[in-house]
């Protein structure tokens, strides 16, 4: 399947909604892991205490790709995430992440032909207010052989 067919058949179709309750403990664990020191994110007593901007990048929905999505080869890798923040997430909120494939494109590099899939998660809170947009770029290498694993 080529990229044009992917665009035609799979782009911008919601394929998953996942629910994530936000707790103080979860925020503090994330802040600790990142080494964040800003009291807005690390001090629960701060009047504006909230999750840091990249907080929602940690979440993965119930599905990475839509059901029956073509394999596009045996090999691939994670090409990173970008986060656009729209509003705060605070303890007690419940976030809902709506997933879709937002873009697909091809490029060539040292490792050969690559197909980039952009998995977009739109996070809204329990009031249906936008919280963030997370774009996760996944690379598939249709021309590469499967990796051989040693037994």
């Amino acid at each position, binding site marked *: 399947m080529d990229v044009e067919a992917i665009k035609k058949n799979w782009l911008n179709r919601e394929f998953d909604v996942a629910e994530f309750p936000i707790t103080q403990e979860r925020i503090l664990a994330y802040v600790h892991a990142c080494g964040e020191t800003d009291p807005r994110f690390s001090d629960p007593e701060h009047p504006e205490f909230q999750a840091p901007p990249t907080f929602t990048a940690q979440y993965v929905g119930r599905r990475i790709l839509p059901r029956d999505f073509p394999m596009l080869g045996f090999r691939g890798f994670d090409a990173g995430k970008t986060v656009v923040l729209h509003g705060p997430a605070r303890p007690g909120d419940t976030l809902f992440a709506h997933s879709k494939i937002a873009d697909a*494109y091809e490029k*060539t590099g040292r490792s*050969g032909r690559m197909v980039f899939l952009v998995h977009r998660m739109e996070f809204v809170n329990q009031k249906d207010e936008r919280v963030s947009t997370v774009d996760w770029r996944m690379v598939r290498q249709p021309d590469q052989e499967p990796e051989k694993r040693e037994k």
Partner: protein
Amino acid sequence: MILDLHTHSIKSDDGRARVETYCGWIRKRELQIEGFVLTEHRQFDDESDYRPLEHEFGLRILKGSEVETDYGHVLVFGVNDRMRAAFDFADIDLPLGLVLEEAKRCGGVAVPCHPGRPRVGMCAHFAERGAVDGVRVIETRNGGSRNGEDAAALALAEKFGYRGIGGSDAHLVSQIGRCATRFEGAIRNEDDLVRAIRSGKFEAIRWT
């Protein structure tokens, strides 16, 4: 005039540098380049107007593109509407001969870049499928080259009599200006750049 002929900004999918930050970095680090060309991947950026940044930082900021062909990646300079109609910049299987010919016909110039790089450089394809007519200039100094890649490019240039340009291939701010091209005269715009590249009067530079 010294220009970095191969850079990417956040307009490219893998670029992480803002043009303004490039400008600030060049001045802060007192780099010797006097400007740069934005060669975004598989597209031509006709939206951005960098003239205010040119004035603010006293730098020349020009625009080209990096397209993908059956012989590897190619920089195109002097992009105009005719050239954009002549071939699809987003196509990753463009015939190199077509890009060279159409760029020239439309008043521009096409320059195969990082030719020594595996898969996306011209050397490997030359070895397998033979040379392509119409190549006059290649990128012999690329800031992203790994061991031996620029040497292969230089050997190719010597074998076929190509002239060589230099560019950093910067995707991050700190990479700009690692390689560049020194021209004899001033380059005021894309037309001057095309004329200067066609004249062959330039040299590729690498700073370590």
